[in-house]
């Protein structure tokens, strides 16, 4: 038996990571300032960690309900109503998942298959195409444009919809661009979708990281409530990436289907994480506010830094990424990032790692200390001057 031949072709066909070489380069270098990290630099607030630790001391180490602890689902329901004015029945319309990532995967596996099309605006999180491909459905990419600040327009959406379109992924606030969509912009998307049999998978994992206005969920439009699955979690808002906990909210039929897959594949989410998450939702507002304030300061400083350097960049109002254009340097995204790393020991991610519309851009994460950001700006300035 040749083991390689036993691997499914569709898995073999998945393209390797476009940034593999950066991992290899980084391993050979010391003192690199990495602006390539897509997770908070904060650790989980102590009171949240303590709640998880306490649950272990109390012996809470057994399985929970497949859907997640009832008290956690109650807390999620109350939180979503309080923060984003969307209302979900904790009993039937909320499923606790292993990170927002599992929520995305479950939703796709429950809803789409061969013959279906899934619209994916890009640049965006790399998992959307991968998870779609695993279902056998066809990803249909919309290349978002810098002149629209990488927001999805109704014209782009209309052009992408076919009779096979079953699902639209709506990733705002966005990784890697930091773009957000406000109520008015979403209402145009709602206008397109309201009479169509298309489900919206709204990845709102960065919802708390909104810097001008409160995040608006497309599910808050009454005509979209039953058609939308909200994916959210604790990773970015509460710095709980390693706890692997998120949730999906939607119509009971969808949540029930997702739960079926979840219960066979996962059983339930980590119990310790669920106890910690209850504490995070009920008493974590102050800590979230502090982190968001810190991100906002860094966002402004890094944006001003790029603009002074001469790299064009729209003002992102969400997540913790900037997506400046490096076209003025004449380099490709890969060239820019590799040379910057080797010459100035600053790591940023080429925009094309998130879709071909990201070519000519870089993703810089400001989930890093202000000191690192200020130093990185100096080094990038030196680099751009040298290569001008």
């Amino acid at each position, binding site marked *: 038996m040749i083991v390689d031949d036993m691997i499914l072709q569709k898995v073999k066909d998945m393209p390797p*990571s476009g940034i593999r070489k*950066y991992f290899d380069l980084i391993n050979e270098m010391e003192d690199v300032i990495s602006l*390539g990290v*897509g997770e908070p*630099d904060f650790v989980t607030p102590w009171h949240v960690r303590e709640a998880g630790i306490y649950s272990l001391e109390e012996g809470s180490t057994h399985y929970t309900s497949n859907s997640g602890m009832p008290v956690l689902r109650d807390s999620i329901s109350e939180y979503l109503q309080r923060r984003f004015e969307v209302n979900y029945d904790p009993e039937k319309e909320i499923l606790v998942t292993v990170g927002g990532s599992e929520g995305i995967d479950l939703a796709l596996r429950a809803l789409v298959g061969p013959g279906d099309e899934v619209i994916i605006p890009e640049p965006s999180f*790399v998992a959307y195409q991968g998870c779609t491909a695993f279902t056998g459905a066809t990803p249909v990419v919309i290349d978002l444009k810098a002149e629209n600040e990488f927001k999805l327009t109704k014209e782009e959406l209309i052009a992408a919809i076919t009779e096979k379109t079953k699902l639209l992924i709506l990733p705002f606030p966005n990784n890697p661009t930091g773009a957000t969509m406000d109520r008015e912009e979403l209402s145009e998307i709602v206008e397109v979708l309201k009479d169509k049999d298309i489900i919206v998978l709204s990845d709102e994992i960065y919802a708390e990281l909104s810097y001008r206005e409160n995040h608006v969920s497309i599910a808050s439009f009454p005509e979209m409530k039953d058609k939308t699955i909200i994916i959210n979690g604790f990773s970015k808002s509460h710095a709980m990436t390693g706890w692997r906990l998120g949730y999906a909210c939607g119509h009971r039929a969808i949540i029930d289907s997702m739960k079926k897959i979840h219960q066979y594949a996962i059983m339930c989410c980590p119990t310790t994480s669920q106890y910690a998450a209850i504490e995070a939702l009920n008493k974590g507002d102050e800590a979230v506010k502090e982190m968001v304030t810190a991100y906002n*300061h860094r966002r*402004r400083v890094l944006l001003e830094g790029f603009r002074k350097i001469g790299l064009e960049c729209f003002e992102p109002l969400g997540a913790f990424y900037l997506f400046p254009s490096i076209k003025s340097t004449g380099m490709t995204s890969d060239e820019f990032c590799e040379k910057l790393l080797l010459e100035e020991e600053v790591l940023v991610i080429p925009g094309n790692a998130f879709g071909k519309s990201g070519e000519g851009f870089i993703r810089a994460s400001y989930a890093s200390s202000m000191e690192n950001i200020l130093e990185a700006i100096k080094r990038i300035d030196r680099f751009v001057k040298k290569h001008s």
Partner: protein
Amino acid sequence: MIEINRDLRPWWGEGFLYKNIDLGGDKLVEILNILKKNSRYTNEEIGIMVGKTEEEVAAIISDYEKRGVIAGYTTLINWNDTQRQSVTALIEIKVAPQRGEGFDKVAERIYKFPEVSACYLMSGGFDVTAIVEGESMEEVAYFVSQKLSIQEYILSTNTHFILKRYKDNGKVFEDKVTDKREAIII
């Protein structure tokens, strides 16, 4: 704008005045919080962080300084790792409050000593906490016995020496914190 609220007259004396200073809104408080974390940011950097011009930030800070909201600037030093001999003690002091002056006059006598780096009026089992710094335990002990406890209206003192600072002013004193995250997370 400074308002003095003369209606607050707690039981411990009439010499207590409560200043109700208008800090001027969330944005201005944000500036204070930034300076509290790191007072070496330039006015330009602070302006970028809060969305104001460098000149606006300078004016705001100057105003806070004049009104005493910003009482001073200092540097947090971790003496643990230096060769400098340094001892810090926390002194619990019981005081007989003075008629018409409350505790304020006695506290003034205490905090005027340069050895006293901080002085607080307390609730609970004693009245005043004084933080005293010296180069040795003997020096601090001498100060307490020869200068502090002999003061009129000081009834008793209880001295505790700080053996190790774990955290001070919001800063944890430990080996340099490293970023434990993977360098690349998509």
